[in-house]
């Protein structure tokens, strides 16, 4: 393949706009926009961002509705030399406000004249200037991008935090450049300008950066499904309608489509990649028949290590799939990343021994934003031979065998729901603040299709009516994203305790199974 001339996605976008302005760039629903059309939007927003009122802002919040204006707002923010932080439109406003406060920005770009979050900000008296990108004035001149410095932050994403406050993860341009260089150079992916990428992720999820913006380095295009209620069906519709050739998806999509595999044929798909959750080997095997011409990859990586940092090519010729307890191997590190396994004594475990997976290298960030306590706990050093190296502690359990790594579970109570990280502790933190609630315990259990179902047990010493439980649900919905609101809430007079006086989570799991 032709290696892209740059690993800077904005520079790539500008170069391909100049070379082939009429090529397709982004597709939303039935409308496909060319590089020239996207650039026109980017230039309008760059003009907006050149206003004096933005001068003090290092980071711009982007209200992340899935439309052309939002994608252009992200590109324009990066082109102006700033970082972006996406704000999920359906996220509870208190949580979004927490993100804005942590970032320290007072400016948000938004597609359209009004949003629920904007109204909430106004009602709460918070001083945030919200700018409608759809009415930005046409550019009076063409603005070139500000070249990013390696240590500039490119984006700030927030992940679930067990103490009730989401943690900010800054990804620097050096991290992003390392990822794109590894993706396009060393993994064996032969993407090209004619490829059509699927972009099924919320912009608050870092896999979106790969799916939406890697194509811009190649002069290729990206297609975004509708986010309406039938999510995974619209993903399939886009795969078929736009003849997608590169698809990065979460395994939850397969868990949903599993029983329909006999109806699915996607011969045009060349690369089918999975990330964000453990990939069950039987699902991968079944899916390969739906995509007869595709190479299958399981890729792995937390937000802190920039999108993904390992890859395993799943064989589709009938040879055995490397797996641990039915979960497909996460493979080998990408170029520029090191995977290490730490043991309980703070040193490295030998091959074959399970321990905490530690990540080092150019894709790994160095902190949680303005959070020294969480930073110190997760970003540490280990002795490798005679030298200390900086590592990120993933909290994932893994082992290495013959150079391949195998995911074995979590050290803590984090679960993945459709790829989103969910700390059960964050749910419990907010649940304990509900009226008449003494204590709370959240339980995640897999249903028949392999998806996690969240169940919340509340300890209350007062009678609690159905109406009160409905109110609890509403209150939790104001504090937590929808995927973190438990499907079922039960009130009990006492939570079961184990011999140590701690909540007996094993017993709670059994209670869920019994119902």
């Amino acid at each position, binding site marked *: 393949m032709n290696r892209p001339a740059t690993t800077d996605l904005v520079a790539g976008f500008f170069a391909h706009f100049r070379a082939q302005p009429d090529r397709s760039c982004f597709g939303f629903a039935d409308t496909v926009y060319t590089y020239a059309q996207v650039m026109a939007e980017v230039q309008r927003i760059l003009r907006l961002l050149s206003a004096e009122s933005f001068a003090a802002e290092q980071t711009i919040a982007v209200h992340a509705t899935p439309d052309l204006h939002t994608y252009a707002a992200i590109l324009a923010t990066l082109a102006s030399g700033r970082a972006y932080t996406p704000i999920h439109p359906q996220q509870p406003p208190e949580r979004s406000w927490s993100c804005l406060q942590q970032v320290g920005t007072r400016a948000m770009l938004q597609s359209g004249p009004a949003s629920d979050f904007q109204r909430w900000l106004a009602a709460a008296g918070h001083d945030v200037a919200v700018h409608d990108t759809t009415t930005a004035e046409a550019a009076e001149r063409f603005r070139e991008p500000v070249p990013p410095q390696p240590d500039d932050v490119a984006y700030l994403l927030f992940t679930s935090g067990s103490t009730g406050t989401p943690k900010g993860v800054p990804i620097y341009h050096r991290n992003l450049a390392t990822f794109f260089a590894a993706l396009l150079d060393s993994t064996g992916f032969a993407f090209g300008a004619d490829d059509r990428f699927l972009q099924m992720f919320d912009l608050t999820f870092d896999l979106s950066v790969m799916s939406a913006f890697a194509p811009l380095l190649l002069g290729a295009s990206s297609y975004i499904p509708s986010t*309406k209620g039938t999510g995974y069906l619209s993903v399939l*519709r886009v795969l078929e309608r736009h003849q997608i050739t590169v698809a990065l998806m979460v395994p939850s999509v397969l868990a949903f489509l599993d029983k329909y595999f006999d109806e699915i044929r996607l011969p045009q798909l060349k690369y089918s990649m999975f990330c964000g959750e453990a990939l069950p080997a039987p699902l991968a095997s079944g899916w390969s028949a739906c995509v007869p011409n595709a190479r299958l990859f399981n890729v792995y990586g937390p937000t802190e290590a920039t999108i993904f940092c390992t890859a395993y090519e799943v064989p589709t010729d009938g040879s055995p799939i490397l797996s641990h307890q039915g979960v497909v191997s996460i493979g080998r590190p990408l170029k520029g990343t090191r995977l290490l396994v730490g043991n309980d004594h703070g040193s490295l475990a030998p091959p074959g021994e399970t321990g905490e997976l530690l990540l080092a290298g150019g894709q790994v960030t160095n902190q949680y934003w303005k959070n020294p306590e969480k930073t110190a706990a997760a970003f540490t050093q280990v002795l490798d031979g005679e030298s200390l190296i900086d590592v990120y502690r993933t909290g994932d359990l893994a082992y290495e065998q013959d150079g391949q790594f195998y995911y074995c579970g979590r050290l803590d109570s984090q679960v993945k729901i459709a790829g989103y990280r969910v700390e059960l502790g964050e749910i419990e933190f907010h649940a304990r603040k509900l009226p008449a609630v003494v204590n709370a315990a959240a339980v995640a259990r897999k249903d028949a299709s392999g998806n996690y179902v969240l169940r919340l047990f509340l300890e209350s010493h007062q009678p609690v009516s159905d109406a009160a439980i409905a109110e609890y649900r509403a209150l939790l919905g104001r504090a937590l994203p929808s995927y973190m609101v438990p499907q079922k809430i039960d009130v009990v007079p006492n939570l079961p305790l184990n011999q140590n006086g701690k909540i007996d989570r094993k017993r709670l799991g059994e209670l869920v199974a019994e119902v």
Partner: protein
Amino acid sequence: MTSQELFDQIQTVFQTTFDDPSLQISRTMTADDVEGWDSFAHINLIMALEVRFGVKFRLSELQELNCVGDMVDMIAGKIGVGA
């Protein structure tokens, strides 16, 4: 089973799936009208309807479901409930 009984039973499945005993469905209702009806809830809803009525939706059928009325009609057709 009458059409009304079928409709009531589907409403019960909705109430259970969305954990909201007061939820009232209508034929024109879509995912946009129900709080919490996102892609995760949609999967749970389809599975719950299949279990409750002992039916199986084909993928091509699911892609034609645009509103609650479409669901009601499709289930009615599968289990033989007249209009």
